[in-house]
Each structure stands twice: as structure tokens, then as C-alpha cells.
């Protein structure tokens, strides 16, 4: 198997930038929706790890 590290690094950087963009989107969602609305969605992520 040949690994193109340059390409992987590019992908990693792009992925991180996209996640930062999602954080901006999500913060905007938090600011424009009630605490109940956004937390209901967020709890799906948090509670998934806890029994």
C-alpha cells in the first residue's frame, strides 16, 4: 500500500476547517433557538456515551 502523506495532511486540514465551520453554524443555531431546542439535539450526542 502506498500512502500519500501530502494528500492525507491536506484532507486532515480540510476536515478540521470544516469542523470549525460547523461550530460556527451550530453556535448560530444556539443563538437563534431556545435552550430547550438546541439542548434536546445536543443531548443525543452527550447521552449516547452514558448508560
Amino acid at each position, binding site marked *: 500500500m502506498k500512502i500519500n502523506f501530502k494528500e492525507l495532511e491536506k484532507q486532515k486540514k480540510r476536515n478540521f476547517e470544516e469542523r*470549525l465551520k460547523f461550530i*460556527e453554524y451550530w453556535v448560530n443555531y444556539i443563538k437563534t433557538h431556545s*435552550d*430547550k431546542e438546541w439542548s434536546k439535539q445536543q443531548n443525543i450526542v*452527550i447521552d*449516547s456515551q452514558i448508560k
Partner: protein
Amino acid sequence: MEYNSIKKEIILNRILSKLDKFVVDFVKHIDDYVIVSGYVSIVTGRSRATEDVDLLVPKLDFEDFKKIWNNLNNADFECINTLEIKTAFEMLNEYAIRFCKKGRAIPNIEFKLIKNDLDKYSYDNKLILKLKNKILFISPFEIQIAYKLYLGSEKDLEDAKHLYSLFKDKLNLNELMKLVKLLNVENKFNLVK
């Protein structure tokens, strides 16, 4: 969510997650503390999970620690590191000790003494978080952002981005920049602003 930076108070009417309930249940037994790191981002909306919550307390003598230990034990919490109170107390001077609900390692509280100036800053400037009818004490956002930039993993940078984006209109920007410079993370700050 309402953040009043003058009163150092946040009012949050979120639906409590299982993690929130765990934290609220734990801090009932601690009078004096500040919560730092990931949970500060998570309770204010960051969409990620965590296995632990970092909690700092001022130096305790053995009698104070024993009272907390017994109360936690009666409330179904146990120390992951040791079941011996004296060993736990000795460990606390050097390391963090972890508490979980009996038989369940996740989530857990990383219980640490305030040891350095950054810890002390968080404690001295803590914010009051009104979570429905519960109260939690959390670290101020300015130091959280700067410290997360210092830690520097992608997760930490994302936590910093979340706090900065959410509260940028209410942050003390002079203070934030002072802390960013102090921790020598000006270059990383550009990523999140």
C-alpha cells in the same frame, strides 16, 4: 442562554443531559469548587461527549476531605483510584483522583487541588451558572479559551472556537488577549476568531 458578564452569571434553561445530572448530583457534596475545561464548553452547547469533568477545589485538610468522601460514598459515588480514604487523600496532593457512580467508570469527575496560578485564576474569577434551579460554578470563558488554545489538540481548539464564537460579544477582550499572550498562543487564536 443569558450571560451577564458584569454579574458573572449565566442563566441556562437547557434540558439537562445525563452528564449535567451527574455533575449536579456530585457538586451537591462540595461547597467550594470550580469546574474547568471541556464541560464548560459542553454545558454551554458544544456538541461533543466526554468521559470526565474536571473539578478544582482549594486545599483541604483531612477532616474536610473525610466529610466530602463520606457524603459522596453515601450518595453512591466511589473513588476509581482507591477505596482507602487515607491513600486517596495522600494521592490528592500529587495527582487528580477520580470519582464515578459505583460500578460505572464513565462519566467520572477528575477531582484536583488548585495548584497553580491558572487554577487559581479560574477559581477566583469563577462564573455562576444557573442551570434551571441548580447552581454550578464554572471557570471564566477568557481563561478557558486561552488555555484550550495552549493545549492545542483539535478537540481543544474546537472547544475554544465554540466558546469564543458563542460569547465574543460579551467577553472581556483585553483580558482574553492578555491571557492569550501570557500563554503564548497568539498564532492559534487566529484559528478560532
